[in-house]
């Protein structure tokens, strides 16, 4: 009789322990069970030895085993609270800064990976010389048809100028082109926009004519006396697959052979005409009467007259008449991403008060004196958010603008300008709004909004939203409508008598 009862007790004890073990987190379960089984052995020895077990002793052992459920629940709750530790970060300043930092890192990583951004920020000497203007007929825009005749150009070039100390002329013609992509392959044929330019064009622009750094220099032995063309980077990539050995190669262009001298970096020659290749030194103004474009360099006197991106020029024609012309600054027309960004940020700062109040709320009703350390903490947090936001805006807008390289630099500039403005404006609005809803003591977000009163009925009474700091430090009143005595949001600092409400959640003040 005693032996079957003993076996049944044993099965019951182990059954209870194993059932309780199911509640224990899996990685702790084996050790937990080992401890309890070890303890059970001692409990049974002490309370219900096999040879003389009493009912009282057996119940004590069962009571001991039932205690295992409380222990397993304790471990389960502890594991759950660890899982919630990240959730407990919700609304903390650290979480906010971590999210902003992650966005910044992501946008920067995209900027490193996107080919458009890399091209924009490449190390190539892409900036043209300062104080250059494109001279066109009055009423022309930057990308309109050429309007300066070779006779006009020769006239200006031949006379002393007080406002300009250098001129270069170019005109664009459509030429059939044949070139061999690889040896022993039939030549490919295409039609390119050929820019026939004065030999000093690249010198005036400040771009070297030879690009031996970017493409491998080829032996000049192959066709040393032939005219030289400089490919645009777009053509180099599109037609030659960005072959670094393209320099020195021969092209049949308009019925004659020319030699490829190099590649002009993308963006540096954003001159009108969508030129695919440049043929320098072909005296374009002498060979034809077709109008072209003129690039001129301003003297100090010319710079003094250049107040805006455009300047009106009165030029004397060869026949003695005066012609009205327009000088468009190359620099102003192609602003760098940095200057676009700064301009858009400036506009966003101007527009910010139109979409949100820049006030951070009223703190003056505080009966306690907030320490300087807490004030510095509050302002540091605001500054950190704004500091992280600005590079985020820069990189995200650059990513957006350069995501598609086929839309052209002009459209990219518009996209960057608009996205920088929008992101900066609404980003700063968020920064201020977020700051207004953070407890000034612990900087955690206030929660549990409660609507008080009806704004439509009680204009003179308090109505609005009340939010609570879960640390038990403050209560935030946000009025629905500004009234005679309640215009902006106010903080009510809670004294220690409120602490009992926040016994389990009270956070220490920083």
């Amino acid at each position: 009789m005693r032996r079957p009862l003993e076996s049944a007790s044993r099965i019951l004890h182990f059954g209870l322990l194993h059932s309780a073990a199911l509640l224990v987190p899996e990685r702790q379960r084996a050790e937990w069970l080992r401890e309890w089984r070890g303890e059970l052995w001692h409990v049974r020895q002490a309370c219900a030895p096999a040879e003389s077990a009493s009912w009282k002793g057996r119940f004590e052992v069962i009571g001991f085993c039932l205690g295992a459920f409380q222990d397993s629940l304790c471990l389960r709750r502890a594991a759950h609270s660890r899982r919630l530790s990240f959730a407990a970060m919700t609304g903390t300043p650290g979480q906010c800064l971590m999210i902003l930092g992650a966005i910044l890192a992501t946008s920067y990583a995209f900027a490193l990976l996107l080919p458009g951004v890399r091209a924009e920020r490449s190390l190539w000497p892409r900036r043209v010389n300062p104080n250059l203007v494109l001279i066109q007929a009055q009423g022309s825009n930057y990308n309109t048809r050429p309007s300066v005749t070779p006779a006009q150009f020769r006239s200006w070039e031949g006379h002393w100028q007080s406002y300009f100390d250098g001129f270069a002329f170019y005109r664009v013609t459509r030429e059939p082109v044949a070139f061999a992509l690889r040896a022993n392959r039939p030549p490919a044929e295409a039609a390119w926009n050929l820019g026939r330019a004065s030999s000093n064009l690249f010198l005036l622009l400040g771009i070297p004519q030879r690009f031996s750094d970017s493409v491998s220099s080829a032996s000049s032995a192959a066709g040393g006396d032939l005219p030289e063309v400089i490919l645009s980077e777009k053509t180099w990539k599109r037609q030659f697959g960005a072959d670094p050995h393209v320099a020195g190669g021969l092209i049949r262009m308009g019925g004659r052979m020319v030699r490829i001298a190099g590649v002009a970096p993308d963006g540096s020659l954003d001159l009108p005409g969508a030129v695919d290749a440049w043929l320098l030194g072909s005296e374009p103004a002498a060979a034809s009467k077709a109008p072209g474009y003129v690039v001129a360099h301003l003297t100090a006197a010319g710079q003094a007259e250049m107040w805006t991106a455009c300047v009106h020029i009165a030029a004397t024609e060869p026949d003695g008449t005066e012609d009205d012309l327009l000088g468009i600054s190359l620099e102003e027309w192609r602003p760098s991403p940095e200057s676009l960004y700064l301009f858009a940020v400036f506009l966003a700062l101007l527009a910010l008060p139109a979409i949100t109040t820049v006030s951070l709320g009223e703190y003056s009703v505080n009966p306690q004196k907030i320490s300087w350390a807490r004030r510095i903490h509050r302002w540091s947090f605001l500054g950190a958010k704004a500091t992280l936001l600005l590079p985020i805006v820069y990189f995200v807008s650059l990513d957006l603008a350069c995501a598609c390289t086929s839309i052209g630099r002009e459209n990219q500039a518009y996209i960057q300008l608009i996205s920088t403005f929008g992101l900066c404006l609404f980003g700063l609005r968020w920064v201020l709004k977020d700051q207004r809803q953070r407890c000034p003591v612990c900087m955690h977000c206030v929660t549990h909004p409660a609507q008080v009163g009806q704004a439509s009925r009680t204009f003179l009474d308090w109505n609005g939203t009340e939010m609570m700091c879960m640390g038990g430090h403050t209560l935030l009143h946000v009025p629905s409508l500004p009234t005679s005595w309640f215009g902006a949001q106010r903080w009510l600092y809670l004294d220690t008598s409120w602490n009992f409400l926040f016994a389990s959640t009270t956070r220490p003040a920083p």
Partner: protein
Amino acid sequence: MARDAKNPETKLSHTAALILHALDAGFVYGFSIMEMTGLPSGTVYPAMRRLERDELIRSHWERQAIADAEQRPPRKYYKLTAGGKATLEASRKRYPLLERLIPSEEARSI
């Protein structure tokens, strides 16, 4: 909420203080603490988990060879940490009667 083991002024519950006293008095495993304090297993073991989490006590397993020699399963022993000892000293001021409930190892040997 987790306690700070480095702060001896940390307030302990009566149960936790009782268990620390029992450990200090030489009752170094769960069942012996239950016997000494009269607390049920459902109270003692969870309390010891919390004390271990707060680094006031630490545990170690008995060597298997010792358990095998005595033909029983190995046990898990607990002992006070430095932080636990400091907290125990602070709790003696808070719960002076605990000293009488659990005589120290020294007193028992006399």
